[in-house]
């Protein structure tokens, strides 16, 4: 926990982005999470990503469920509306919010208990529907607020702080998201800002269901030997398949990489994901291959990270429902109410 309040006055020389905001304008309230919590690092990367994308903070809606991770939205984007919903049910609230106003940026923040246990069903269905959102699971394999019970993403055989081994099979959120129809799926590590910031930026720009599984060690209950979600374990077993460079539009490529090492993925809005391939054989646009490689890595005890799957031009929920371009929450009686003349006709047909 941080006890010292940050000063509210900004240094006059603080760098502003194109939207006219400083990085500090994307901060939230002071975190009440434990010192060293991975979640705080993720919050900082979200701040960084939004700053770099020149996002207007008030055009973001941040939603979460219940749990340590779900508290996190309070600690970034203080100028955004936030919604702490109920445990495991953030996806449905985010779906409804998205239906009401397609013009906002939707950021869902959840945890492994919230999304893999109590909310597993809603997690699956929000991906199926292609809700245009960025859904981040801060994954620490453990229930923090209730003091250290295993979650459904804890690996079989991993050991709790109290020394108990987990006998249940773990749920791999990345595989589930790909199978359920998410169109942008990545995994990263809270301790790897270089990898995570561009992934979040790319996810936000993706028009469809973007999911990021971010391993985020729990310093209080899951950072000991025998844990597979500790800082040490993840650092040792992190196997990145690529590095994402996020380019907002088709700008000239200035950095040169060896041919064959680059893969470009164009998105709806003209933005380009440039993937620096670390694993030559990995093609994130192939669902079957992606699932295969994720499963192989898991069997080998590796934590596969990077952009693992992307379908660059998917239809989102609004496209599927063929809703009008104006946000539904801006429609008025003149748009919505057919009036008495329609009723007269209808009445006549009901006699």
């Amino acid at each position, binding site marked *: 926990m941080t006890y010292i309040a940050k000063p509210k006055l900004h240094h006059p020389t603080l760098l502003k982005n194109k939207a006219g905001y400083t990085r500090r304008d994307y901060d939230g309230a002071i975190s009440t999470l434990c010192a060293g919590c991975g979640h705080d690092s993720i919050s900082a990367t979200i701040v960084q990503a939004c700053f770099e994308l020149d996002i*207007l*903070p*008030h*055009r973001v*809606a941040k*939603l979460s469920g219940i749990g340590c991770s779900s508290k996190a*939205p*309070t600690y970034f984007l*203080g*100028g*955004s*509306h*936030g*919604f*702490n*919903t*109920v445990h495991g*049910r953030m*996806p*449905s*609230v*985010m*779906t*409804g*919010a*998205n*239906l*009401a*106003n397609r*013009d*906002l940026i939707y950021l869902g923040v959840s945890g492994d208990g919230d999304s893999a246990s109590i909310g597993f*069903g*809603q997690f*699956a*269905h929000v991906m199926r*529907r292609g809700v245009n959102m960025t859904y981040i699971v801060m994954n620490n394999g453990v229930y923090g607020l209730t003091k250290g019970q295993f979650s459904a993403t804890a690996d079989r055989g991993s050991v709790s702080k109290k020394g108990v081994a987990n006998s249940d099979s773990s749920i791999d959120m990345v595989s589930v998201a790909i199978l359920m129809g998410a169109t942008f799926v990545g995994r990263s590590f809270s301790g790897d800002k270089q990898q995570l910031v561009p992934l979040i930026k790319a996810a936000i720009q993706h028009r469809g269901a973007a999911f990021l599984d971010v391993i985020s060690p729990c310093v209080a209950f899951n950072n000991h030997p025998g844990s597979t979600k500790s800082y040490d374990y993840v650092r040792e077993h992190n196997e990145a398949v690529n590095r994402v460079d996020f380019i907002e539009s088709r700008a000239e490529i200035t950095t040169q990489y060896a041919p064959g090492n680059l893969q470009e993925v164009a998105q709806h809005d003209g933005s380009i994901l440039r993937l620096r391939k670390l694993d030559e054989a990995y093609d994130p646009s192939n669902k079957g291959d992606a699932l295969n490689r994720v499963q192989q890595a898991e069997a080998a005890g590796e934590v596969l990270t990077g952009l693992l799957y992307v379908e660059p031009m998917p239809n989102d*929920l*609004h496209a599927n*429902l*063929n*809703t*009008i*371009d104006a946000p*539904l*929450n801006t*429609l*008025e*009686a003149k*748009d*919505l*109410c*057919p*009036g*008495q003349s*329609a*009723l007269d006709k*209808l*009445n006549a047909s*009901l*006699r």
Partner: protein
Amino acid sequence: MPKAIEAVNDFVVKFANVNGSGSASANELFARSILRMGVPVSPRNIFPSNIQGLPTWYEVRVTEKGYLGRRGGVDLMVAMNPQTWAEDVKEIEPGGYLFYDSTKPMPQSAFRPDINLVGVPLTAITNATYTDARQRQLFKNIIYVGALSVLLDIDPKEITRLFGEQFKGKEKLLDSNVKAMNLGRDWVLRHLDPTEVKLKVRRADNVGDRIFVEGNSATALGCVYGGATVCAWYPITPSSSLAEAFQAHCKRYRHDKETGKAKYAIVQAEDELASIGMVIGAAWNGARAFTATSGPGISLMTEFIGLAYFAEIPAVIINVQRGGPSTGMPTRTQQADILGCALASNGDTKHVLLFPEDPAEGFEFGAASLDLADRLQTPVFLMTDLDIGMNHRLCKPFHWDESRAYDRGKVMTAEDLEAGKKFGRYLDVDDDGIPFRTYPGTHPTKGSFFTRGTTKDEFARYSEEGPVYVRNMERLEKKFDTAKKIVPKAIERKAKAATKMGVIYFGSTSPAMSEALDQLEEKNVALDALRVRAFPFGQEVVDFVNSHDTVYFVEQNRDGQLRMLLIDQLGVDPNKIVAILHYDGTPITARFITRAIGDHLAPPRRMAAE
């Protein structure tokens, strides 16, 4: 010869059919043809939770006086289902009629000596004319409608006209249906004496400009007119047809003329938890949203309902009630979710309920509930039931006041914020308990806040302090008081004579109650009647209870749930309240109410002990 019931424009016909045999449209045709003769009818579907093959019934009350409640008893049974033959025959009133397929000879023991038999060899007629199995099945239904039209004096021209409307542009179908009708008519005219059936339909002028519509469709239309743009639902009997009707209405009325794009979004959710979650998310974000469900769905939604109550988010929940508890009687009617909805969720919660009496009020309240939810920033339950929702009911035509504007409640705009208006999400600025809200994305620097189900202060900041919590709970209570003043008022029908006895009723009990009041009046029992249309109760309900010495409470549940709410809210003497409770899953009847009140006034004498 057994005696024969004689009645003109006042009798009950019941069709016993097999589910999925195409009988529903033929039976509806029968009911509509009588309506077209200016005679009110009140039909009811009685069906099992099944798709094909099980028994299903359609009961038509022909009622010149316009009593639209279920009457009880059957004067003419159209027994088309061998499976239920015995119980169908048993249900006929003495002197009533049994219409049956006489193709195969039946033993005398299959009948009753005190009823009149009308045998028509439907199968033989059908098989002689049609070879295709499906045609045989479908046209057999039309043939019996034709036969009945002769026996009951229904004008075949009305039936033909209905065919014409139904099969507009499909002349082949029109002709084949008319032919089937005439097959039935001709056989009866040649072989039977229609005067032996003494139940007759006679032209009248008692339908007027009323419309014949299902409650679920009407309520869904109310949601269209009320400006709902988001509907999230999960299929459950008897509410599914409401969401489907909303879809159909939206297809007709809500597509942009130029682009063809939809001015609505409907999501069939994965369960009721998700459907209410989507409604809350949409309403939080400034769209009008609703869900339609039934009792078990409400059970699943309760956690979210508590969130909407405490975080103060509008939500319209239409509960088409069925028989409970648990899965209960999925295809039967009850008013047994009153307490469950009024107090849904953990902690001290209380919710607004509306009780429409028929499809017309379903339409009105559908729109009104969206206004109320926005005004009060809280869940509003529209408490209809299977009897209203899944049956065609004669009711006043739909009307919309063109000058009516949507009441979006207290929403602070970017201009308000820019002008420096003080914004505290949970600040009671108008002393009515209702704070202002902002939609997400309104203003770059002002008006954002965090919505949560935990306790918070007036400025939406998390707090677990006792006084802060109590202040908030008391404001919510004040808001509930405000609700009393703006929900639909109860409607009183005064007895012709002064009386200290009253009766309170609500929802689908309405038509049966109106009829019972007439019956009681004929017996010189004077009762003032109050139809409650909403919870919390307004002052008029308090005054009504206080000004009567005995108040009957007529409800379609076991526990007298509305009565409990009333005793709790008004603190009235429970001893002056008499519960009249009907809860076997069938719609309540005037006969039941009249008998129950009569029994209370003059208890039947006990048989002397032997």
